[in-house]
C-alpha cells in the first residue's frame, strides 16, 4: 500500500518537474520572442518617423510647385477657372472632344451625375 503511494508520489515528482521545466523553457522562448518583437516594433516606429519626415520633405509645397511647373506645365489657378457645378453646362464646348457617354464609359460624368442627384 505504502509502496504504491511512494511510487505514485515519485512519479508525480518526476512528471510535475518535467512539466515545470518544459513550461519554463517555452516561457523563456516566448519572452525572447516578445522582446525581439518589441525591438522590431521600436525599429519600425523609428523607420516610420524617418519615412514621415521624408514624405513631408518630398511633398514640400515649393518643391511640388517647381515640379508641376516643369513637368506638367501647370500655373497659378485663376479665379475665372473656378466654375460652380450647376454652371458647368455653360462652359462645356458644344461638341465634346470625345463622346465618352456614347462609348458607355464616362467615370467623371458618372460622378457629376451622382452629385447632381444629391
Amino acid at each position, binding site marked *: 500500500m505504502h509502496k504504491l503511494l511512494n511510487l505514485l508520489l515519485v512519479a508525480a*515528482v518526476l512528471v510535475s518537474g518535467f512539466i*515545470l521545466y518544459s513550461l519554463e523553457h517555452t516561457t523563456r522562448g516566448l519572452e525572447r520572442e*516578445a522582446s525581439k518583437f518589441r525591438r522590431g516594433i521600436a525599429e519600425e516606429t523609428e523607420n516610420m*518617423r524617418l519615412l*514621415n519626415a521624408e514624405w*513631408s520633405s518630398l511633398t*514640400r509645397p*515649393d518643391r511640388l510647385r517647381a515640379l508641376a511647373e516643369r513637368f506638367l506645365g501647370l500655373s497659378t489657378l485663376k479665379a*475665372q477657372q473656378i466654375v460652380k457645378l450647376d454652371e458647368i453646362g455653360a462652359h462645356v464646348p458644344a461638341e465634346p472632344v470625345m463622346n465618352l457617354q456614347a462609348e458607355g464609359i464616362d467615370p467623371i460624368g458618372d460622378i457629376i451625375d451622382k452629385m447632381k442627384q444629391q
Partner: protein
Amino acid sequence: MTDAPRDLSLHDEAPPRLEGQNRLRLIGICFTAFFLAIAGQVTHLTLFPKQDEGPLRPITEAPLPRPDIVDRNGVLLATDVAVASIFADPSKIIDIDEAVELLTATMPDVDAKELRRKLTTAKRFAWIKRQVSPEERDAVYNLGIPGVSYVNERRRVYPQGRLSSHVVGYVDLDTKGIAGIEKYLDDQGALYTASLAEPAEHKTQPAQMSIDIRVQAALIDEIGQAITKFKAIAGGGIVMNINTGEVLSLVSLPDFNPNQEKKNFSKDQQNRMTSGVYELGSVVKAVTFAMALDYGTATLESRYDARFPLVLGSARINDFHAQRRVLTLPEVFTNSSNIGTAKMALEVGTVRHQEFLRRVGLFQKLQTELPEAAKPLLPRRWSKLATATAAFGHGFAVQPLQGAAVVAGLLNGGHLLTPTFLRRNEEEAMAMATTVVKSSTSEVLRYLFRLNATEGSASKADVIGYRVGGKTGTAEKVVAGRYSKEKRLASFIGAFPMDNPKYLVLVMLDEPKAIPGTYGFATSGWNAVPTAGKIIERIAPMLDVEPVFTPEDLQKLAKLEEQEKKKKQN
C-alpha cells in the same frame, strides 16, 4: 545503511510497526516540505515575475521626447529621428591601424589621418562620427572592433526646411527649444507632461499649429520674388484669419534653414514681423478713420480741406499725392491724404486719440506664443503734433503683427483678438475678444477698404473675383534721426472677400527701389500692392474662398481674354 538490518534483528522484541510508522512519517514530512517549497517558488514566480531579458542592444533614451509639430492640415513640420553617435575607447583598441582601416572603409567620409590622430592621442574617449544613420551604425557595430561603440541619440529635423523657419523655431544640441514655437513648448512645460504620460514609449501628441504650410509656401515665394524684383533689402508678410486671430502664415525674409548644423544666425535673419518694430505709415490711417467714425466726429459725408499744408508750430504736414482741393472722407482714404487724416485726428483730440490707441492695444507689447516680441516705440511727449503725425503712422512704431491684429479687429466687426499660432475656433476667439469699435464702424471701414482697392491706391491688389480691399502705406525710414527721402518701407494691409472678410493679408517691403516697370515710383502701390495681389490669387483657392464675378468683372475678363488672343496671334 548496512547496519540497519542488524539493528532490526537486535530489537526483535520491540514493535516494528511503530518504527516503520516513524520512518514513514519522516519521509512524508520530507516530501511535503519538498512539494511546499516547489509550490512556494511557483507562487512567488507567478506573483513577482522576474524582469524579462532586456534587448541585446540597449536603446538609450533621449533626455526628453519632444512632440512632433504639425500644421493645421497635419503636415509634419518638426519631428525627432533616431541617430547614433559612434565613439571609441582607444585604450581598449588592440590594433589601431586595423581599426582605422576598417572604420574608414565602412564610413568613407571619415578622414583617416584625423581618425588616427584622434585614436592615438585620446586616452579613454574620442568621437569617431556623430549623428549617423541606423544603417551606418549597424555596419560599424558588425565590424566588431573592441573599444568601438555607439550611443543612440535623437535629432530634431524640420522636413519643411526654411518654410517653417521663424514660426516653428529650432532647438539646440540638447534638443531644448531656443526659438519660436519650440521654445514656447518648453516654457509651457508641455514637453514635461508629455514625458510623464508615457515615458517609455515615444508616443506624444503632436502639437498642432495654426500655420497652413501651403499658404506659407505661396507667401514666401511671392515675397522672395518681390524682394528680387524691387531690389528690396528685406520683406515680410502675414496671412491671418480675421475671425479667429489664427496666423495662417508668417514670413520674414531673409530667413534661415532650421536644419543647418551651426545656428549662428545673424540679426538680419530675425523675425521682423514680431521682433522688429516699424513705422507702418499710411496703413495706420485705417485706425484713425475707425477712431473718428466710432467717436462720431466724422461721417462718410465729412469734408476736409486739403488745399494747403497743415501747419502746427514749426512743422508742416504735406500730402504725397497732393490734390489741392477739399476732399470727402472716402477721398481722404483713397488718396491717402496726410492733411485730411491729421485734421480728423485733431478733431477727436489728443486725449481721446491716446485712449483709443490704448484700447486697441497699440501702446502695449503684443505677446503671442512666439517668444520673440518687441515693445512698441511711442512718442515721449504726446503733443498736438504727435497726434497729427501718429494719425498717419509717423512717430510711432509697432510690430507688423500687431498692426495686422488691430486692422483685423477693426474689420471683423470690432472684436480685437490676440493673434495665435495655435488652433483656435471662432467661438473660443469671440469669447476672449474685446470689443473696440461698433459693428457699424467696422462696416464703414470695410466699405472704405474695398473702395480703395477698386479705385484707390490699392487697385493693383484687386484680383478679379475675390473682392479684395486694402490700405497701402509708404513710410520714410528714419536714418540717423531724420526721415530719409530715399529709404522707404512699403506696406499693404488688406482683406478678402470684402463682403464678409475672412482673411487678412499684410505685405511689407523694406527699401524697395523704383524699377523700369514702375515709372520711377517706389511707393507701396507699385510694389507691395501687386505682390499682395499675386499672393491673394494663389492662396484664395486654397482657403476655399469662392470667386464671385460682377458684370463689370466679366467685361474686364472678356477684354483680358481678347488681349491675350491678340498676343497669341502676333
